């Protein structure tokens, strides 16, 4: 591995490969992309993440050239690409439906783009063979798309879009049609191929787990705007808003009013009859300001006996247990009706668990476990 961490976005000297500058896209009266600016760097595996209708697919289609922005500028390697038609762009796209040509064999599908370039026969054969090897499809070269499985079709689509060695590869929900197990394997395969080819990948997905696994950076989108652009761990650990915290993974959100104790330490009054919570934040909060504390379930400890020392301790009753095999998520109802989720690893056999449905339990977490959010 490289000794330096791959993080071109932190280097102010580095020129981005793709640059969205104040891009707006309207469909009639509907604003799909709202004055958005974004830089994506070379060799990145960049994920556009959001619920359906958030504008992520429109972003990708503008990069491919299928949509023209209403206003703003899109640069690829320093050049404005808005007037360039899709067939003249150094980008290739892998479609959600794969869009394999049903009348052509796997081999001809992969060779399709190379033929349009007018590549020499020998070079083209070599390139197609290379792509077949990369995606482990050698045995299926002579088959038509309807004669292979879904996973194989996905790999043909990938091979076809990589064959022309694009500067930028766009992947539109590339794994959406695969079952869970195959999807996991394919995620690692995608990362492998991205590393081997050194191509910049931009992936569109609504699956947060997929984005977390594959991406170097994630852009969380909502209603045509970027909510947060950061590395997966930053997005998970320090979300900027309740929306991001809630969209990525499981989270407990507790709403309350803040009081400063000492620098960075706050007391949060959140419900009548409950002890105030303690939380830390580097962001300043005014006295009495409404704040949301986001705490991940795995950072909440659950125990049958009251823990000795902890910044926050609450008591409640086990309402529900979601057993996931390796993990269990406990839904604990507090006296005021608030439900807090706690997740623990099942390190002991299930029969030896010291509490079950209806039992009174104690939940505890540290002041730094949660993130204080203003909105």
């Amino acid at each position, binding site marked *: 591995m490289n000794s330096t961490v791959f993080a071109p976005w932190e280097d102010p000297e580095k020129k981005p490969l793709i640059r969205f500058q104040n891009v707006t896209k309207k469909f009639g009266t509907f604003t799909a992309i709202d004055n958005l600016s974004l830089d994506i760097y070379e060799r990145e595996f960049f994920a556009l993440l959001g619920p359906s209708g958030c504008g992520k697919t429109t972003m990708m289609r503008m990069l*491919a*050239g*299928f949509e023209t922005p209403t206003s703003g500028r899109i640069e690829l390697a320093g050049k404005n690409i808005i007037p360039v*038609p*899709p*067939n003249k762009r150094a*980008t*290739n*796209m892998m*479609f*959600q*439906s794969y*869009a394999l*040509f*049903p*009348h052509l064999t796997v081999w001809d599908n992969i060779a*399709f*783009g190379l033929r*349009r*370039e007018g590549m020499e026969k020998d070079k083209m054969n070599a390139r197609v063979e290379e792509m077949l090897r990369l995606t482990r499809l050698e045995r299926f070269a002579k088959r038509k798309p*309807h004669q292979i499985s879904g996973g194989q079709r996905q790999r043909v689509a990938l091979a*076809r*879009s990589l064959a*022309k060695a694009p500067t930028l590869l766009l992947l539109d929900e590339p794994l959406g049609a695969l079952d869970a197990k195959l999807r996991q394997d394919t995620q690692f395969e995608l990362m492998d191929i991205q590393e081997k080819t050194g191509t910049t990948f931009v992936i569109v997905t609504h699956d947060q787990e997929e984005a977390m696994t594959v991406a170097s950076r994630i852009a969380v989108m909502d209603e045509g705007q970027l909510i947060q652009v950061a590395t997966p761990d930053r997005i998970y650990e320090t979300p900027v808003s309740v929306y991001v915290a809630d969209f990525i993974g499981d989270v407990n959100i507790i709403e309350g009013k803040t009081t400063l104790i000492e620098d960075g330490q706050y007391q949060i009054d959140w419900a009548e009859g409950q002890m105030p919570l303690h939380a830390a934040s580097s962001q300043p909060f005014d006295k009495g300001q409404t704040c949301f504390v986001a705490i991940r379930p795995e950072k909440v400890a659950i125990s049958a006996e009251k823990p000795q020392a902890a910044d926050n301790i609450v008591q409640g009753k086990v309402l529900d247990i979601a057993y996931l095999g390796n993990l269990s998520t406990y839904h604990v109802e507090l006296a005021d009706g608030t439900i807090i989720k706690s997740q623990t690893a099942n390190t002991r056999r299930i029969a030896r668990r010291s509490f079950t449905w209806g039992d009174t339990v104690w939940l505890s977490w540290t002041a730094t476990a949660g993130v204080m959010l203003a909105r």
Partner: protein
Amino acid sequence: MRKFFLIAVPYAWLLALFLIPFFIVLKISLSDVALARPPYVPQFSWDDGIMAFLRDLDFENFVFLTEDSLYWKAYLSSVSIAGLSTILTLTIGYPLAYGMARAPEEWRATLMMLIILPFWTSFLIRVYAWMGILSQEGLLNQFLMWTGLISEPLMILNTPTAVYIGIVYTYLPFMVLPIYSALDRMDGSLIEAAEDLGCSRLSAFWLVTVPLSRNGIIAGCFLVFIPALGEFVIPSLLGGSGTLMIGKVLWEEFFSNRDWPVASAVAVILLLILVIPIVLFQRNQQDAEEAAK
């Protein structure tokens, strides 16, 4: 048992409405003409038996077809008129079907309706309407003279041009519908994928759209060519005496000359000519079904 009935129904249909009539026609084609009612001497009768039939068997009516140049000229001219009409129908029908398939979703049902609508009126009435449009004093000539494009009325009715217009008009829906259904099924992202991989709009059309609508094109062409080959009403009403088509020859042989045996021989040969495209059509349909699976 249920399976047997399911298969038996179409076969019974085929037997009653195709095979039996065909054998009657075949029998007449082997007979001799006579001044009688019906106007032929049966070659085969149950009294004399099969041996007498085979002993007296001759193909004089079929031989006659080769002797008089009228017949093979009529066959040839029918094939060429039907072939050219098919090409013309395809040229007009494909863009129509393409436009329909690309039209906004809410318009498609209406457009489809407009294609089918002419079938609600009698075919004969529509052909008569074309006589009114194409004749020397017809609407078309009046319009052209009014615009000043021509000073003398054009002779369209009773020429092959009128036959082509009639066939293209009548059979256009048979071309449009299968092509439309092929284009409608096509995934729009295929065209985008082709463009993404370096195709211009036009080359994407030739390399993706046309091959994927191939089955629709073939089905449409056969659906036009097969009935157009034996077409009788259109050439006789619009084509005048100058147009030679086998359907018309057959009709004249049967009703004007009352030579049933020769007319039957003409019909048998016409059927044999049609068997080739019909078999090809069937094979195409089977391929299409397999590809769709």
